[in-house]
């Protein structure tokens, strides 16, 4: 029972809970108490310290900004106005807060606001759907286009859009980079001859990729009504992030253990058999390492690309909030930052999980 729980936890990447479970089962108390401290208490404490430092920092910044604002009002509009502003700030009215790094509690409040906002919008959407259901049915019959909800997307909708874009980009990278990587991994001539392309394009910034894709897609989609912002951003994400997979696949394929190659030769495997039964499985660990990097790069550049391409998603959310410039917006940006970080972390864990599932060697950590 206990062992299977531990195994399950390890499998889903929560192996750090192991000593706690052992401690509850009264196994080696001294050793496991130490382990609990090292693996659970200390990390949790570090979270508190982090939040505490953040609180201190934001208070300090708040004071500087507030003083400056009062001072400035005093100079330009006189005593009475300055007093008014001061009172307004102390009352906590968001309208007159100084614009600076928000404190943890403000960020948490914004998080709740965003959730509330999502609930309202979701309810709105549902009501809209119900209302237009019958009408849309009729319109479909008459051959007219259906009426869709065009209201403002909620924060959660933005997350979903971003995830959709990143997966589309990731799949694009996968389908381009793995086959090409295999081909150039197999042939050292090819590898040598197109190495320059990789060397040159790998370090190109996401912004430039976006512009390039924009030039091409804009022309190609001139006459269609497709969602070109989405197309542009996912293609750019794919192109930016595929290089790690390409290079790792090529390296994996070209450096397969000679023992395996010798087996393939001695058994006289046909070329396709050799690729699918020996070379690909042998290079799978490296291909997966590449895919993991690709996914994390994709997620990282996504925000910048959405921001520039003005396609909906977390990137444009951050940008719009930044341009709003209110105190509340700053905390929303920080919420987005945490969400982005946690989703990135979760994506990496998922890749690691899949990698461990298919790996034939020792567990990777």
């Amino acid at each position, binding site marked *: 029972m206990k062992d299977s729980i531990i195994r399950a936890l390890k499998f889903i990447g929560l192996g750090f809970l192991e000593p706690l479970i052992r401690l509850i089962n009264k196994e080696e108390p001294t050793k496991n108490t130490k382990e609990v401290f090292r693996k659970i208490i200390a990390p949790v404490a570090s979270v508190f310290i982090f939040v505490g430092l953040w609180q201190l920092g934001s208070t300090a910044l708040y004071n500087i900004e507030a003083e400056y604002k009062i001072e400035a009002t005093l100079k330009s509009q006189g005593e009475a106005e300055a007093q008014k502003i001061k009172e307004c700030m102390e009352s906590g009215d968001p309208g007159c807060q100084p614009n600076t790094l928000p404190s943890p509690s403000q960020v948490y409040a914004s998080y709740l606001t965003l959730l509330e906002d999502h609930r309202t919008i979701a309810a709105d959407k549902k009501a809209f759907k119900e209302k237009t259901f019958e009408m849309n049915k009729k319109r479909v019959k008459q051959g007219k286009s259906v009426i869709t909800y065009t209201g403002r997307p909620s924060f959660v909708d933005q997350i979903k859009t971003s995830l959709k874009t990143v997966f589309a980009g990731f799949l694009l990278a996968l389908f381009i980079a793995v086959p090409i990587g295999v081909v150039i991994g197999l042939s*050292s001539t090819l*590898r*040598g001859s197109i*190495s320059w392309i*990789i*060397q040159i394009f790998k370090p190109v910034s996401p912004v430039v990729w976006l512009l390039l894709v924009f030039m091409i897609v804009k022309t190609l989609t001139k006459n269609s009504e497709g969602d070109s912002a989405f197309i542009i951003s996912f293609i750019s994400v794919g192109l930016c992030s595929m290089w790690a997979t390409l*290079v790792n696949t*090529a*390296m994996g394929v*070209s*450096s397969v253990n000679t*023992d*395996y190659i*010798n*087996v393939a*030769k*001695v*058994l*006289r*495997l*046909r070329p396709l*058999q050799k690729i699918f*039964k*020996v070379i690909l*499985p*042998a290079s*799978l660990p490296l291909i997966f390492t590449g895919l993991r990097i690709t996914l994390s790069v994709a997620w990282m550049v996504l925000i910048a690309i959405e921001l520039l391409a003005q396609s909906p998603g977390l990137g444009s959310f951050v940008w719009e909030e930044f341009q709003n410039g209110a105190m509340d917006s700053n905390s929303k940006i920080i919420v987005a930052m945490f969400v982005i970080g946690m989703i990135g972390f979760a994506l990496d864990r998922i890749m690691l999980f899949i990698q461990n599932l298919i790996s*034939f*060697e020792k567990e990777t950590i």
Partner: protein
Amino acid sequence: MAILELKNVFKTYNPAKEYKGEILDNINLTIEEGEFVAIVGFSGSGKTTLVNLVNGLLKPTEGEVIFKGKPVEDTSHERGVIFQNYSLLPWLTVYQNIDMAIQEAFPKASKQEKDVRVKEYIEMVGLTHATNKRPKELSGGMRQRVSVARALCMDPEMIIMDEPLGALDALTRGNLQDEILKIWERNKRTALLITNDVDEAMYMADRIIPLKPGPNATLGPEFRVNIERPRDKTALNDNEEYKKTRLKIIEYLMDLGDAQAAESTATYELPELQPKDFRWDAN
């Protein structure tokens, strides 16, 4: 009739700059059909290199390797190989590892025939209970059995074994020796066994040839083992012929070892190693 002939074979891995016989120096060897030949040699003398020349993975720098009258150009299903380090594919199960060989060796057989054959060979090496296990779940001895089954299921005319039992304990070793002998006797194939164990060679082979230590390793004089088959391991120790031959071989090998030790203290050369560049654009 000679099934395998090596004529004046020289081998170096670095033909550009070293002497052509850097690893193997003028090897001459003839193996008759149905014969069991053992080559004993020190570690690093070039035994695996010799095996790879015979099975077609390597080409001699100079000289000829002739199998059934034709020069060896490439690997072939006629020569089954048991690798020194098993070389099972870790992502395939026991069944799949053997099936892969059978698919290639008998492309025309029906699905069912192939399946029967895979199972037959798994049973022959006593691994039926582990049919669906992967190599990492097997013990060293079991892995070696899979490797034996994989080589034999293709029904090769010659079995080439590169220290097949080197990593096993004495007990498992004895069992597998008997199994290999049984298979060899059943179809009267030709066998080339590489080993570093004189007793193993004495028990299994008709003829034992020492490979002198490298560099420039060459074959020493052959020793015939004229003992009736099937041989009985316990009775062997009292057999006069066995004792005499064994002593001769061991004395010969010890002399070689002493000579090499004297030489290696005189000229202590460091091997020329180059770091391998794994960056992707390196060729």
